[in-house]
């Protein structure tokens, strides 16, 4: 319903929308990072680099955790009324599709 949706959002709800986008993208981002080791072939490198692999994987893990922490801090308070209008205008959520 394009006519019921405002063209521009208030700054707060705009930020909230972008955080929703970010939290949706986070698992894909994480998947790419965690599948990167597939390209390394650690056993074939002349120098053993398993320790570096450990450091890489745990760093990625910590980055994901911190990203999730920041996003969940931003999203959790409005979670229960996520579908309520945020600005005075009639604003509706583009409902989450498949994933």
């Amino acid at each position, binding site marked *: 319903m394009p006519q019921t949706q405002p063209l521009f959002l208030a700054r707060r709800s705009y930020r909230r929308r972008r955080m929703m986008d970010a939290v949706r993208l986070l*698992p894909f981002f994480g998947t790419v990072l965690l*599948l990167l080791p597939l390209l390394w072939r650690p*056993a074939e490198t002349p120098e053993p680099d*398993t320790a570096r692999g450990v450091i890489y994987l745990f760093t990625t*893990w910590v980055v994901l955790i911190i990203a*999730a922490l920041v996003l969940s801090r931003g999203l959790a308070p409005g*979670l229960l009324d996520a579908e309520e209008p945020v600005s005075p205008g009639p604003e509706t959520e583009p409902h989450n599709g498949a*994933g």
Partner: protein
Amino acid sequence: MPFNILVAVSLTYVAVLFGVAFVAERRAIGGRAGWLRLPLVYTLSLSIYCTAWTFYGAVGYAARSGLEFLTIYLGPTLVFVGWWWVLRKLVRIGRAQRVTSIADLISSRYGKSNFLGVVVTVIAVLAATPYIALQLQSVTLSFGVFASDTPEGWAVPDQGATALWVAAGLALFTILFGTRNLDANERHHGIVMAIAVEAVVKLIALLAVGLFVVWGVAGGVADILARIDASPIADWELKPGRWAGLTFVSAAAILTLPRMFQVMVVENADERHVATASWAFPLYLMLMSLFVVPIAVVGLSIMPEGSNPDLFVLTIPLSQGAGKLALLAFLGGFSSATSMVIVAAIALSTMVSNHIVTPLWLALRVGSARAPGDVRGLVLMSRRLSIAAVLALGYTYYHLSGGSAALASIGLISFVGVAQVLPAMMGGIYWRGATHVGAAMGLITGFAIWLYCLFLPSFGPNGLLSARLIAEGPFGIDWLRPHALFGITGLDPLLHALLWSMLLNTGAFLIGSLSSFPGPMERLQGVAFVNIFDQSSGPGSWTRSAAEAEDLLSMSQRILGAEEAQRFFQAQATAQGKAGLLPDPTPDFIARLERQLAGSVGAATSHAMIAQLSGGTTVSVQDLIAVAGEAQQIKEYSAQLEAKSEELARTARALREANEKLTELSVQKDGFLSQISHELRTPMTSIRAFSEILMESDLPEDMRAKYAGIIHDETRRLTRLLDDLLDLSVLENRKVQLNIGVANLHDILNKAIVAASNTRPERMFVVQRDASTEHMPVFTDTDRLLQVFINVISNARKYCDAERAVLRIEVKKRGGQAQIDFIDNGSGIPKKVQALIFEKFARLTDTSHAGGAGLGLAICREIMANLGGSIEYLPGQGGAAFRVRLPLKLSA
């Protein structure tokens, strides 16, 4: 350490847990659940994902396959940081629909189909079996570590007996906790609190061992990193298929494992806790994994060749003489195993009792919801038996598999098994087109492949499948080998089973869904699940409520417990504005009650129970068809009525016309009577007058002759008039004697034209004929026919008002009939009197004087009727036109 002390420590630990659970339960009942509902407790309860597999098995896994063990924790991490997609929706659905288990979720989504509930339950129970065996094995092994270390020779029972004791103890503990009450929300505050405590214990234990290994045994972080690259682990080979496949299967498992579903969705108290868990749970997993590689590396370097790497967490501290740390590690492992077994057993027993035992009991005792008998007791008893049975199955698996395999490889069998629920679940919450046929096909396909390719072969060669079958396929069919389906070899068995089961499962699910049609209830539930964020009220409301509130109360008391049920009814009654205990059974109330009951016995069962009491008030397809049939009948009936009323209207119109005609006729008749009186009177008057003159004696002869002539003429006129009347009367009564003869129509017309020519002989009158068409023989009363023709032609001569009068005679042969049209070029007959010209006494003009009293056409009509034909006025021919129809051969 003496075995007795070990047992005593374990029992004390269990008692403490029991105490914690008990206190938490009391606080929850007392409404002081505040700190029980912290997001931290929710996150910690999720840690039952980390079982003895993690605590002991991860180190063994790392020692054998390097960093591959991380995939088991990275998959769930991805699911949790992507909580906005799936977890948020699952939790919302679980709360809105009061889902009690993963089987209930699937059953509820696909039209509250109990069949699907049974299928998911069976998959879940079988898949949990290796997992529970894994826990028994790890606890048994850990007991064994302490036993082998003691020279005092305390009698450690053999492994099998230890496992049996552990299984029995866990069953008892679970029954004591999990089935003390039947909560309407299927929430277990006590259990959740206990596993949160256990989560802390196992995390502290593993971190303590890790810190001890890094800084106590090795020389800090740099040393450990160097040792990693120097150890055999550095030679591990990253297999891309396994890396991606195991990440996927662990991500699937965290959504579909019954115990994870239990703590994640069913025990969830607040949706916002999911947001916290989205980072806190990955953090917990990360911390649990942090020291796994160091422990494995150090263990491989300092422990003797051939020692079981699965037990490094215990054996390293023991070998370094850190007995207390070893005891802490033992408790951590014990916590991991027990918390998993307890929650898994509770979740599985809920599924078994809700989807198998209770429906069976309901089916065996038809109409029993009203009958005496305590459903509560039945449900609790069936759950207790299910818990015992689940643990017994786990023990059996442990016993059959020999209790020697690596822990991680056992656990992965379970993961692939429960992952079979994933397509039906994801399809169910994101795709409205998913149907129960598709879900059943997918689940059964995936389950069968998992069973054949992974579960049954896991008992080893000559276990449940013969070695020959595994090597050569059933009946020697090469492409059906359990580890090389369709001739694809070279994959490792786990990946092989995962690939084929998920591919064919998803394929069957999609094809089944696309080619079947969902029932009404299923479609309602589909909308409710897929569009969960669009709505707040549940579907499937009870449209009619034949259910009596009292019956409902007595049933609910048996399920929810008297106090709980009464409180619920009272609250509903108050909400409806009624005093007392019994609310009106409105559809809204019944829907609420159904959801309330669903919390205790599952959606399908609760729906069936309410349906029994409300007399099957849900609208089935059969009902709909019956309603449609009735509607069709009503429609037909109304169509009939309509037709009848139209017929009535037609009749009424005909009657009105007839009435109008009668009225007009009556007027005509009156007019005629005065006319005929006049007609009769005029000659009578002259006859009387002249006969009086004749009576005078001195009348001259020529005068007498003249007057007598006048009298004679007048009497002839009278006679002719009376003859006509008589003739008409005879014809009307069909008493006329017909002289049938044969004649040429052409000749009859000739005679008629000649005979009619003495009517107004002074007029110029042209007759147009087509002689060639007129030659046809007719069998009829030729004199009467001639009479009709003469009359029609005379009328034309008399009344045609054209300057140059022309009469056209057209003859046609139509079937067995001759059709003779007489058409003149006059002004014709006005429409309003067309219907009257054939009536007796009809006269168009009072000025007419040339013959009879308007009986001519009436006589013609009667003659034609007698001859089996007809005469009618033919409108729209430019002048007066008459059509005479006549059968060529008069039937006698």
